[in-house]
């Protein structure tokens, strides 16, 4: 089978996903356009070499609808011949889009493809696309639907993570993100976002709160206790699925969960021949990819199983992985993953994650793929496994290896 290589990976900084966020005035198609234009121009590629673009986007309605990827491809002045597809695997979309791009290379469908993702959460709020899952009684009943925050608290309860455990994890994420920024570890891949008159509106991750400590987090009330215990009472559904538990311990809040942000990312993926044609050196190869489904009520335990599957398909064991990257959707998700696979905290999310910098749903998977690649090069590591927990009980994982 043809091998797929990563030639480049870039991302926008993440702006606060609110009306006063720095990227709120930038349209999502413009975020996508800027990463597409930059990854082409900074590598001096002729656009016609790029055959297809796969972007994740989780709320593909309104200005993110109508296959935003193709819209952005045209807007970025790619040649008419470059196709575009929008991918939705909830929080795993950005990684899944990159995996699809890689798969197109491996299968021989294409030579050079861009993966990535975009999400302007300030402009197209989470859940804007509705969906049968929680609203249609048939599917809500069948899946014992609960919101992700309840699932995260369920994980904390079932696997024994206290409020202190999850808060301590969050403090460390902030600390690591600050160190990474201070030392310029993201420099190579961050592309500032510009407005219509060409001025830079954001050049750093806007959400970070490096001053966060246990005391400041301790002051926050659990975010999901009300909907869990009172109206409408989601905890009961979690307990119906996990009847061995007596009560859900609500530990998550805004400070130890991923932040709502705007952003976009792109990853240039191709085979050896394409690399020669565009005169670029491959930075890493795709060793394996995997997506799995898992129990939908606890919802966020998928990464463990996706990682195991990816390792198996790569013929590797977990000791073969140098760095681990798991999207920090909620602190307990990462703590459970570390517990399940016995991973040292020092080897995972080494430059912080979504708790500190935010989680632009459709883009995050591609962002952390790039972040890990930079870190492998900086720290001279050979292998990495990137994974995300995903809504409705799924997980996607990718193992890459430096060339």
């Amino acid at each position, binding site marked *: 089978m043809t091998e797929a290589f990563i030639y480049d990976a870039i991302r926008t900084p993440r702006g606060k996903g609110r009306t006063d966020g720095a990227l709120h005035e930038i349209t999502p198609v413009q975020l996508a356009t800027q990463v597409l234009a930059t990854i082409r121009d900074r590598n001096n590629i002729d656009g016609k070499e790029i055959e297809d673009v796969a972007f994740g986007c989780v709320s593909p309605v309104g200005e993110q609808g109508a296959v935003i990827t193709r819209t952005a491809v045209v807007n970025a002045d790619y040649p008419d011949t470059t196709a575009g597809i929008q991918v939705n695997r909830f929080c795993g979309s950005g990684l899944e889009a990159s995996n699809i791009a890689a798969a197109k290379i491996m299968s021989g469908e294409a030579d050079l493809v861009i993966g990535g993702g975009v999400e302007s959460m300030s402009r197209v709020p989470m*859940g804007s696309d*509705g969906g*049968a899952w*929680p*609203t*249609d*009684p*048939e599917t*809500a*009943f069948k899946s*014992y*639907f*609960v919101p992700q925050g309840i699932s995260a608290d369920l994980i904390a309860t079932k696997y024994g993570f206290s409020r202190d455990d999850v808060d301590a994890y969050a403090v460390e994420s902030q600390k690591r993100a600050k160190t990474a920024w201070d030392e310029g570890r993201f420099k190579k891949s961050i592309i500032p976002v510009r407005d219509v008159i060409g001025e830079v509106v954001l050049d750093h991750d806007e959400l970070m709160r490096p001053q966060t400590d246990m005391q400041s987090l301790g002051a926050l009330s659990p975010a999901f206790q009300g909907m869990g215990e009172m*109206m*409408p*009472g*989601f905890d*009961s*559904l979690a*307990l*119906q699925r996990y*009847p*061995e*538990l*007596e*009560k859900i311990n609500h530990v998550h809040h805004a400070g130890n969960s991923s932040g709502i942000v705007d952003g976009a990312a792109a990853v240039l993926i191709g085979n050896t021949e394409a690399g020669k044609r565009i005169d670029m050196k491959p930075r890493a190869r795709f060793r394996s990819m995997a997506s799995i489904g898992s129990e939908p009520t606890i919802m966020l335990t998928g990464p463990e199983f996706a990682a195991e599957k990816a390792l198996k398909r790569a013929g590797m064991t977990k000791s073969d992985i140098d760095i681990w990257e798991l999207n920090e959707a909620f602190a307990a998700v990462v703590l459970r993953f570390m517990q399940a696979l016995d991973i040292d905290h020092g080897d995972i999310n080494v430059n912080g994650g979504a708790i500190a910098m935010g989680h632009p749903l459709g883009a995050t998977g591609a962002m952390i793929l790039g972040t890990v690649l930079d870190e492998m090069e900086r720290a001279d590591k050979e292998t990495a496994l990137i994974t995300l927990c995903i809504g409705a009980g799924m997980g996607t994982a990718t193992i890459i290896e430096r060339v």
Partner: protein
Amino acid sequence: MTYKTFTVDVDNDGIALVTIDLPGKSMNVWNGDLIAEFETFVDDFTSNDEMKGAVITSGKDSGFLAGADLTMLGSGSAGGGEGSAFDQAFTLNRVLRKMETGGYTAKQIAKEGKAAKPVACALGGLALGGGLELALACHYRVCADNPKIQLGLPEVQVGLLPGAGGTQRLPRLIGLQNAAMIAMMGKPVNPATALAQGFVHDVVPADDVVTKAKDWVKANKTATAPWDKPGFKFPGGGGAMDPRAAQFFVGANAMAQKQTYHNYNAVQAIMSCLYEGSIVPFDTAIRIETKYFMKLMADPQSKNMIRTLFINKQAAEKGAARPEGVPKLEIKTVGVLGAGLMGSGITHVTAKGGMNVIVLDRSEEEAAKAVAYSQKIVDKGVQRGKMSQEKADAFMARITPTTDYNDLKDVDLIIEAVFENPDVKKDVIQKTEAVISKDVIFASNTSTLPISGLAKNSERPDQFIGLHFFSPVEKMPLIEIIPGEKTGDRALAAAFDYNAKIRKTPIVVKDVRGFFTNRVFPPYMNEAMLMVTEGVKPALIENAAKDLGMPIGPLALLDETTLKLGYDVLQSTKQELGDAYVDNGTEDFMDLMVNKLGRSGRRFGKGFYDYDDKGERQLLWKGMADHYPLSNDQPSVEEVKERLLYIQLIATAQCYDEQVVSDPQSADLGAIFGWGFAPYTGGPMSYIDTIGMDNFVRNTDSLAQRYGKRFTPPGSFRKMADNGETLYKAA
């Protein structure tokens, strides 16, 4: 044209007054005759130019129309039309829709300006289920201003859904949320609320409802339902794309699951009707509603619920088991002996039933407790606006405390509720019989002492009977009637005549230790305790019971009834049976909890759970694991559910086998209303019939092998399985 189920009077203005009045029935219901005739009327009405409009009302004082005839539904002969099963089930929807549209299609109404003749509904009394659905299909509704009138869709309570447009018209009139409260919870509203919500147009004095309805018809040449008008929008949002509706569904789906534990199929079906129906045009929506209705009708759940919770419950309450030919006992005054918790409760329900009560106890102070008990409840009613001060005063005036047996000389019935001690009982029986008339029936409220034994203290054992109330008396719906060996028909009839006034669900049970409900309840509690001693996680036991449909976990229930009570009963049983006593496996556990740890229940501040200063239940006591370590190999929730369910099924089966209850109807009613057995099953006997007797025997044999011979089914059940018999023979 003339009809049997209603009259049609056309006035000079051409307005047809349709007065529904089912012959020989105390209440109007949709039965086959009414549906067929109403269809004929609608066909005539829409095509006959002499009728310009119509007003529909009822000829019954009891109300407008109380829904479908559930016995008809039970027999599967719903609907009158020919054609496919769907066409038949769709009959009433089709007829009402024709009345509403005048027979025009939605397109003709919207594009060609066609419109129906106006139809108004004059509601002088309650409109429930299909009755309200008929009203909703009219273009205008006037209701009498009596706050006691109930307007609602209670079908969910018997496992069905409103299948004549109710799940579609109501949300289109008052929004999804209000409609869900009425249809999903089965809770009726009064006319004022209906007016405020917007599904009644006018509320007027009862005498004016027909006039006002006619006035409206006269003022309107044609009428069109709101949803047939262009630009119709759901009040408060509807459909899958409206964020307000989406938010409603996410919340309502969760609440429904929280409350039903996925056990009540009708609740989900109603939610689906609201959801799917709000996305599509009205004519498609009512077709969807009929399909969900058919799905529920084909489900044994609705059949079981209708049979037990409606038909058999009503029959029992009407006195189906009352001996025939005994003249009805007129009860004006009841003498209640003992003003303790039970005596006070009995005093209260008796006064509530309109009877006078003379409540006797040893001291004035003790007797006054019964007065205070009722006063507290009555005051709360006044405070909440549910009772006028006048009525409250009249209520309390019916209760007379006394310490003097002579005050009992004119009572019509005695109910004894003194301390459960044979000597005390003997004393009051003799003192009372010395003063009351020779023909007065003496009822004894006991939960542990055999009636035949107590009757030995009576000079008139044929007039002596057991009446087992449950605590708290004013809340618990069941009453066990226990004839002793010598109890005569007159005493049995009197028990029913008394019950007809206090309106509980009565079952007749045999005079054995524990009667019926207290024969089944202890094994169920024991099974939960045994699991604790086996190291099953207490939370798993509690959640499994709730999953099964029990209202509360068995360990929480044990805390409520107190382990101390269970322990005391155990001791007295031991003492009584002597060498014949067989260990049930909980003896050491009870001894530990009650004697060594003092965790005797909520009243004692601790039990299986911890309690705060106010007695509010906190979490399960973690220390249990120190005495009974949690097993590393926890059973699945299905296994725990199976044990908790089958121990109740077996104990009920044994009672039936021993004729403690003589028919499956009584067993099912006693189980659901006595100790809260999962109502959606229709009761343990219905459950066994539903899974099949051979499956029941096979499952119990397997359980007996795994957990012990307490799960062995009675021989008569094995025989029934061999013979392919069912408990409800004609079922």
